[in-house]
């Protein structure tokens, strides 16, 4: 009983800690123009590669740009990319999954297409999409979204397949309830818990994938600073000026950590099976 109690606290603190850190990061990102007086794109060759100091809190990069300023502005873009990717991937994946799971004749073809998409390595697909259609915020988001869609769709379809056999759904079908109503009233609510958990993981992986794209030269251009492209630009001078990588890297790690903690906490509280087991 005591172990159970302790576990419950731990769960809640997970949500609390994760959510708290994320909120803090969000506030910092939004306050970027207040927290730094520099322009993130301002080039000053005279101040290249200066170590952290009172003037440049996190030092400067190869072009003499202030790393602190870029990290702050980068937070806006990185968090935006991550949130957008999660939101879009989940809405599209959810729609596809619901349709495929519920409408039987569509299941085969839709899921084969999803399998095909899933069979292409996500990173490669994203690189191809970005380098082929140009590195803008929109293309980068689309490129990270596409490989995530089949995963969400599969998850949702799985839930739908198991729910639709439940007696109350069969009863609703028997009563002649229209399909959209069944989908929205009975099936959709059951997908929410796993989707929220999935969503947090997508958030985390989106930030990392964006960093990887920048590393490979297929990320956002330097005028739009993101943690990913700050790190990628600084990688060539890692041993000489490690601060260019370590500060945004630290922020990146903190964010992913927070998102993961939040996701774990949510899973433990939301997953009904988990609840059942703990209650038993």
């Amino acid at each position, binding site marked *: 009983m005591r172990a159970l109690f302790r576990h419950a606290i731990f769960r809640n603190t997970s949500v609390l800690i994760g959510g708290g850190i994320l909120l803090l990061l969000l506030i910092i990102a939004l306050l970027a123009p207040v927290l730094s007086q520099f322009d993130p794109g301002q080039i000053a060759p005279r101040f290249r590669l200066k170590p952290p100091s009172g003037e440049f809190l996190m030092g400067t990069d190869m072009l003499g740009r202030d790393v602190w300023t870029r990290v702050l502005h980068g937070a806006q873009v990185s968090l935006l990319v991550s949130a957008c990717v999660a939101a879009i991937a989940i809405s599209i994946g959810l729609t596809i999954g619901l349709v495929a799971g519920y409408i039987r004749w569509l299941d085969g073809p839709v899921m084969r297409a999803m399998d*095909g998409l899933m069979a292409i390595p996500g990173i*490669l697909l994203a690189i191809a999409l970005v380098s082929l259609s140009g590195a803008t915020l929109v293309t980068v988001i689309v490129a990270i979204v596409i490989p995530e869609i089949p995963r969400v769709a599969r998850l949702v379809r799985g839930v739908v397949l198991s729910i639709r056999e439940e007696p109350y759904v069969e009863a609703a079908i028997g009563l002649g309830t229209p399909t959209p109503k069944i989908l929205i009233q009975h099936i959709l609510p059951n997908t929410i818990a796993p989707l929220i958990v999935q969503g947090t993981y997508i958030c985390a992986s989106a930030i990392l994938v964006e960093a990887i794209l920048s590393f490979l030269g297929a990320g956002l251009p330097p005028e739009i600073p993101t943690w990913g492209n700050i790190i990628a630009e600084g990688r060539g001078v890692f041993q000489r000026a490690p601060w260019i990588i370590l500060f945004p890297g630290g922020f990146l790690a903190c964010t992913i950590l927070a998102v993961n903690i939040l996701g774990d906490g949510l899973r433990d509280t939301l997953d009904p099976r988990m609840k059942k087991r703990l209650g038993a």
Partner: protein
Amino acid sequence: MLRLILSRLVAAIPVMGVVAIFVFLLLRLSPGDPAAILAGDAATPEMIAAIRADLGLDRPIWEQFITWAGQLAQGDLGKSVLSKQPVAHMIGQRIEPTISLALTTLLFAVIVAVPIGIIAAWKQGGWIDRGIMALSVVGFSIPVFVLGYILIYFFSMKLDIFPVQGFASLSEGLLPFLERIALPTLTLSFIYIALFARITRAAMLEVLGEDYIRTAHAKGLNESTVLVRHALRNAAVPIVSVIGIGFALLIGGVVITETVFNIPGVGRLVVEAVLARDYPIIQGVILLFSGVYVLINLAIDVAYVLLDPRIRY
């Protein structure tokens, strides 16, 4: 079993078809022109046009697709636009480092992660559990290339234990092979250790709550026997499935590690091909990757049946 395998292989054909068409269209509809790349900096428009015609890039897309699909049906992946080498030959040259790295990473990750996951589940909620899980979350949070640089800095530059870069084939001897692949493996396996440990922990927790485990305890069997003989065996299905998916991800995901450690693998081959618009290579490698993915999924299904006789297809 044979029927399962056959039916799965047949089902793979439309999947591969989807991949082939998707990739082909994606490439042809995009900007960038291999002819311009081939011709270089001082090229004149006439020269670029001549090269385009020579490569067949001036013909309609559907015609190009039919040509390619026809070659493909005969098992011919075509030739690289830039180097004129057969794509199959180029993949052959570059596949060994990638497979080696993927396998060593997988092996190392499983060896480390499964015990960690078991211990975490066994001492669930204890400080070991939390410590291990926190560490595994850290594993998710560090970009692979940052980790690679840090490891090179300490293990190669400061401690002088491993070489910085390069790949040695197993045929050159076990020691040179291990020496070169150790750091890349360590770098790449970090995130997989995190992933596998979490899945093992979750699967074990599920199983540990079952009645037969209690029965086993009641019979007075010692802790390790219960954990390994009874629990792990039943928890194996989800673990195997994640390892399989992990392998598929690895094959596509080694590209960063290959770049940092200068390993001449397939990942770099395809990324460089994308940047140079070398269409036949991109098409060939992505088809290969998706083929591997399909085969691994098949292998997972077979493993399911072997591991858990209750599962039927």
